[in-house]
């Protein structure tokens, strides 16, 4: 199928691509095809300019100085909190906790929300789809408290087993922690029905939204989740910055996680009193430019519209699935009925690292390995997959380039 025959949702992808300077370069003598968006997305010029403008004009430490720059930096930093609040429809900016990313957000909940009350006999429930960041923090808190980590199985499409979940959840369950979208397979987990069941059992719910938030509209109040974690760098923002959304009533009861500056009101050697939300959880000088960059990224995403982004990416997924399925010997791993624009695959008996190296020489950037989801690889009895993950700045032609690079891979390895 010729790429330009595809019906596209009136989406001017060429105009969008002009906003992303990094996309316009040659890699190994070929135009770059960047299909590693699930690992980290690229930045539109508006995000890069917001960050550099902050450093060129406004930088100072926040929350402290009475001088003009400190005030401007504080305004930008706290203004970003409201941009983020609106983007996920949280009720209050106090519910937006800045972190270093999804991983730190999950660790914060494990150590501050669960650890003080978790005890032997209690359980934390996750799914077999999770990224290591939504496994290991729970393992650590279980080791610290004697609680158990329970895992909802998945089926051979990469769909979480809802019936098994209903049997696993119970009065011993102290938290349900689920990926909203699987990074390794692209499965969109129908979290609403999981949350509904958890609510009936009085079990709080954390969603790992790192892979969902770049691709779909997230409304934390409609979802009715208790915690939602995400990273700026998966959604056009900078690395080293992310967000924990938490329901205010829960956050208020949680003790501080890390101690230091900014999170206190008064300090004496006998006792310190702690700042209010959200700063109670933000010890030390934060990544101010991270907040500025994320706010600019959200404004860019909203300028296009999350619904249009989701629709276009779905067309990319549909086309790529059809196109790659036609390559003899290629098997897609993860065939859930609802997927984000991620295709994990194995190709004959060619090791994914060979695929990654060879398609890179054709200018095509994909991810290979276990994608920080070793239990998912174990389930499918494979050491690794190759993964192409798409963003709204990718094109149908780029999918054709990937397919051609895969055909080339087989030729190089003598297949």
């Amino acid at each position: 199928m010729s790429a330009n025959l595809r019906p596209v949702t009136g989406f001017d992808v060429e105009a969008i691509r002009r906003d992303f300077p990094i996309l316009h370069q040659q890699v190994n003598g070929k135009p770059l095809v960047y299909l590693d968006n699930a690992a980290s997305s690229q930045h539109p010029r508006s995000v890069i300019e917001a960050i550099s403008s902050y450093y060129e004009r406004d930088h100072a430490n926040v929350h402290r100085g009475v001088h003009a720059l400190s005030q401007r930096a504080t305004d930008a930093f706290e203004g970003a909190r409201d941009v983020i609040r609106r983007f996920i429809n949280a009720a209050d900016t106090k519910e937006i906790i800045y972190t270093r990313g999804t991983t730190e957000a999950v660790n914060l909940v494990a150590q501050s929300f669960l650890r003080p009350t978790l005890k032997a006999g209690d359980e934390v429930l996750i799914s077999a789809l999770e990224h290591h960041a939504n496994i290991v923090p729970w393992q650590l808190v279980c080791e610290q408290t004697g609680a158990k980590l329970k895992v909802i199985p998945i089926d051979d499409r990469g769909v979480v087993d809802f019936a098994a979940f209903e049997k696993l959840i119970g009065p011993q369950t102290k938290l349900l922690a689920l990926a909203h979208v699987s990074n390794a397979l692209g499965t969109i987990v129908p979290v609403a029905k999981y949350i509904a069941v958890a609510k009936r059992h009085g079990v709080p719910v954390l969603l790992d939204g790192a892979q969902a938030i770049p691709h779909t509209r997230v409304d934390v109040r409609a979802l009715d989740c208790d915690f939602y974690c995400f990273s700026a760098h998966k959604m056009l923002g900078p690395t080293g910055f992310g967000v924990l959304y938490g329901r205010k009533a829960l956050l208020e009861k949680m003790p501080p996680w890390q101690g230091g500056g900014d999170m206190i009101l008064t300090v004496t050697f006998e006792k310190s009193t702690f700042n209010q939300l959200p700063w109670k959880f933000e010890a030390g000088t934060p990544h101010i430019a991270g907040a500025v960059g994320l706010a600019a990224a959200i404004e860019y995403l909203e300028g296009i519209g999350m619904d249009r982004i989701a629709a276009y990416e779905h067309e990319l997924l549909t086309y790529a699935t059809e196109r790659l399925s036609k390559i003899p010997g290629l098997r897609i791993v993860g065939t859930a009925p609802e997927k984000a624009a991620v295709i994990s695959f194995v190709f004959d008996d060619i090791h994914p690292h060979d695929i990654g190296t060879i398609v890179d020489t054709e200018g095509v950037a994909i991810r290979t390995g276990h994608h920080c989801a070793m239990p998912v690889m174990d389930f499918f009895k494979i050491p690794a997959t190759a993964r192409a993950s798409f963003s709204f700045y990718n094109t149908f032609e780029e999918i054709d380039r990937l397919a051609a690079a895969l055909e080339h891979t087989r030729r190089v390895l003598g297949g």
Partner: protein
Amino acid sequence: MDLKDLYRDVIVDHNRNPRNFGKLEPADARADGHNPLCGDRLTVYAKLDGEQISDVKFEGSGCAISVASASLLTEAVKGKTRAEVQALFDDVHALLTQHDANVDLSKLGKLAALSGVREFPARVKCASLCWHTLNAALDSQAEPVSTE
């Protein structure tokens, strides 16, 4: 960066048809190598006759570079003493990592086909895993080896 430098005919051949592939039982020495990020995993077995490696085999799975490198290793070290293996390892290591390596390629035989790997730094760990694993086997090391 030329792909043909990495995937030379010798490499492609040894990946598709690895030599000395399988278990060696009983073995005087064995060790496991595992690069968890890649998923490369192999076991190297050796039979020893005094200081000399009288037989060597490997099994496992991995990328073309790791499998071909292990296959080439088995051909190269059979019949060699430990000291000769160490000298060979030093040469291969220099070949894999240094552009200005002062290595006599004629002494390396087919192992010279690995010289293209140095243009692909991310893949050096694939080619060197089997060598570190053989060393661990000869040193009777129980812990699995990794080059990541």
